[in-house]
């Protein structure tokens, strides 16, 4: 488990060997903003360097997310697409879900209610 930012954002990574395809799960907790978006980008880039077929970011632990964190996620989505993989988001709380809607990011990146829906999706 890596502590990032000013102890505001926690990032934990697991590689899950499911019945179907294995996937990488990144769980975010706390508050993701401009003060820790560099750390978030580094954490995601480190995982994407291993070329996972599917990367799921679990947002359910996020109390807050700003446009800096969104840009990191959008950039990760482009990287995953270039690598032939898929990025999915899971479990955003309403304020985060609303922000994804208002920016239309939810039309670029699939957003699921839960991680298990994302793995089934």
């Amino acid at each position, binding site marked *: 488990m890596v502590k990032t930012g*000013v102890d*505001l954002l926690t990032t934990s990574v697991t590689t899950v060997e499911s019945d179907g395809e294995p996937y990488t799960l990144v769980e975010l907790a706390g*508050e993701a*903003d*401009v*003060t820790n978006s560099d750390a978030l980008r580094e954490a995601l880039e480190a995982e994407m360097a291993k070329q996972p077929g599917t990367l799921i970011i679990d947002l359910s632990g996020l109390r*807050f997310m*700003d*446009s*800096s964190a*969104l*840009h990191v996620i*959008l*950039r990760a*989505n*482009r990287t995953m697409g270039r690598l032939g993989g898929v990025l999915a988001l899971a479990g955003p709380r*309403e*304020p985060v879900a*609303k*922000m994804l809607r*208002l*920016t*239309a*990011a939810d*039309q*670029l990146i699939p957003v699921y209610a839960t991680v298990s829906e994302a793995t089934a999706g």
Partner: protein
Amino acid sequence: MGDSAVLNRTFRHVGFFYRTEDEYAATVARFLRDGLAADEPVFAAIPPARIALVRDALGADAPRVEFADMTEMGRNPAWIIPRVLAFTGQHAGRRVRYVGEPAWAARTAAELREATRHEALINLAFANADAEILCPYDTTELDPAVIADARRTHPVLLSDGRHGSSPGYAVPFQIPSSCSFPLPAPPDDVMSHTYRTDLSQVRALVLQHARTAGLTDARANDLVLAVSEVAANTLRHTRSHGTLTIWHDQDEIICEIHDDGTITDPLAGRRMPAPDAGGGHGLWLVHQVCDLVELRSDGTGTTVRMHMAIHPPLAGG
């Protein structure tokens, strides 16, 4: 397409000064019918009572016009330009016609300032558009200062049935002073907080005050997002601290951020960034989630004043 179609490719922004409902209905209906006759997509965003008038005047033609309740669509005047850009985008390559009535007497002074700013910005946002825009102003109800500003923001005026160029229209583009002068001072009993990098504390303060003022959780979270986005710009674009000021009365809570930064694009936040754009989402979100945003920026710094109504006229949000 003949030569005339090419020659007609122009942007026209007309301020229409009216006194009576009959004059309103006849003029707006004629404007819309001219568009229908030319096979142009037509859109009218006007207050609900005015929609009823115009529908009556249009009769069988009414269903061919897209109507929107301006008191909803333009409650925050910063929402209007993106909505009209979406309409022109749906009909890309075609000349479009739009009626927009952004000012009405029941609006607050701050809303009217922003309605005026919106009208000025229409000239920038649609400068290269193939569009005809008519903006009705009720001269019997609105403050004469609002009408005077409408003369400054519209290149063409329609009054007493006659079109004429507006002598007061500012060229090159200019925001009328009524909405570019410094904002009225806050009341004496405000909460003030200086921040540098601790945005979490900024958000906690906003959340606490928003709840005390009586905002619902959803709207309190909207205000938290808006303030945090503006405060993040202090970190991104300045080397100094920023100041958060919060106050409220029975009608609204206001959060203001001041810092040393400069925002040069007057349309910032009024055009939806492409979803995968590398920037520009911050001010877009600020305008989208707030009921009203006032922004002043020059060489001395930037002030962004974000308003949230405590009892919003509409459910949801």
